[in-house]
């Protein structure tokens, strides 16, 4: 390897990067491809990065850029961001999340509007602070805070829907049993 310690960067970040890519692309095959592409770019250009503490940010930003580059070929995302908080943040408890399987939680995250999803995925998957996210995405801190709040708000709605959907799939069996046994 031409970059010292590159294996450790693969080991350290590839799972979070894959999850980040999966939240963006909504396809496991594309997510794996984006993750591979990011490390490919790291292997060819990473030596230009002088500050080793910026590796995490570099990898996530690069993967996001690569995702956007591919998306530009497919369609355009009109972005509507309001400046006010429209409604009270919905309440979904951690118990609801704990009762869902991991794929359902990822699917809920994938449904969040892309502009909110990107900072939210960085916040959750690699514990970026709002200031680090602002730096990585080149956004004002206030915008990031706003997007995180709205992203979480949407996520709670979708998690609530997922929990309701899961509950509706449970078919009560008591009635027919009682009758046949009686």
């Amino acid at each position, binding site marked *: 390897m031409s970059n010292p310690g590159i294996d450790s960067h*693969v080991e350290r970040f590839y799972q979070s990067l894959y999850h980040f890519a999966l939240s963006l692309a909504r396809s496991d095959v594309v997510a794996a491809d984006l993750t591979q592409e990011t490390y490919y770019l790291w292997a060819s250009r990473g030596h230009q990065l002088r500050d080793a503490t910026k590796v995490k940010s570099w990898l996530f930003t690069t993967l996001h850029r690569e995702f956007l580059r591919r998306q530009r070929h497919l369609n355009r995302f009109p972005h509507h961001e309001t400046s006010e908080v429209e409604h009270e943040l919905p309440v979904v408890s951690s118990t609801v999340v704990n009762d869902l399987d991991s794929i359902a939680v990822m699917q809920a995250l994938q449904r969040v509007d892309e502009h909110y999803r990107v900072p939210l995925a960085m916040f959750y998957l690699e514990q970026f602070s709002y200031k680090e996210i602002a730096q990585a995405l080149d956004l004002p801190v206030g915008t990031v805070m706003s997007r995180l709040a709205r992203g979480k708000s949407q996520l709670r709605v979708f998690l609530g829907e997922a929990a309701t959907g899961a509950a509706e799939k449970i078919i009560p069996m008591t009635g027919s049993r009682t009758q046949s046994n009686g």
Partner: protein
Amino acid sequence: MNSLEAKFILEACRSGDLDETDPKIAEAIQSMESDPELSQWFAASQEFDRAVIAKLKAVPVPSELAERIRAGQKVVAVQARWNRREWLKLAALLMLLAALAGLLIPRMRSHDLATFRNDMAHFMDHQWDHAFDLPDPDFTTIKNWLASQSDSVQLELPLTLASSRTIGCKTLSWHGNKATLICFVPKGAGTVVHILVVDRSAISDAPGEEPQHARLPNWNSAIWSRGDKTYLALTTADSAKLEMCL
């Protein structure tokens, strides 16, 4: 700052890294201290975040992904070395050629998988003039023609490729070994899949039957062996489409 505004700001924070030097956060913390309900909400919000993080981290990651990443990096590393020492190697080669002038006889030698992959990608990028020895849309015709040229070409390709339309084929020499290029247009791939075939014995670390994927500068690639042949697929299609063809 009312409770809703405080919640809006606190949503972006974790309890462990509340930056009190930020006036907005300091104000939100102050609100929390005087509002037990807000404080309770923040604790629940942090618990919610931890639950989401735990679930997201539990989403399965493809088991071979790390290996595929490392394989791709090896490709880059090999090319980077070539670029740095290109002139030095060229000079050395010229000296060798001068010393052995008139004595050079093509010899069959085995080289490693990465060399084969890189050489073939380089051939496709820079050397191939897109001319075929036999341009033909039918794979059976191509197989028969190759068999008539040499009895050592017994191709065993995945059904998706074998049943696809072809563009043509070309034979080339790789370090004294015969290699064959066949270009397919599989349905759904949206582009051409180039298959390069060489004797398995020509590659010192020939792969098994399971395709090994690697991203090259201009190509997605997969390499595998079947029978006495090793097959390299190169395409500009994404890896998902390539996998569909194999």
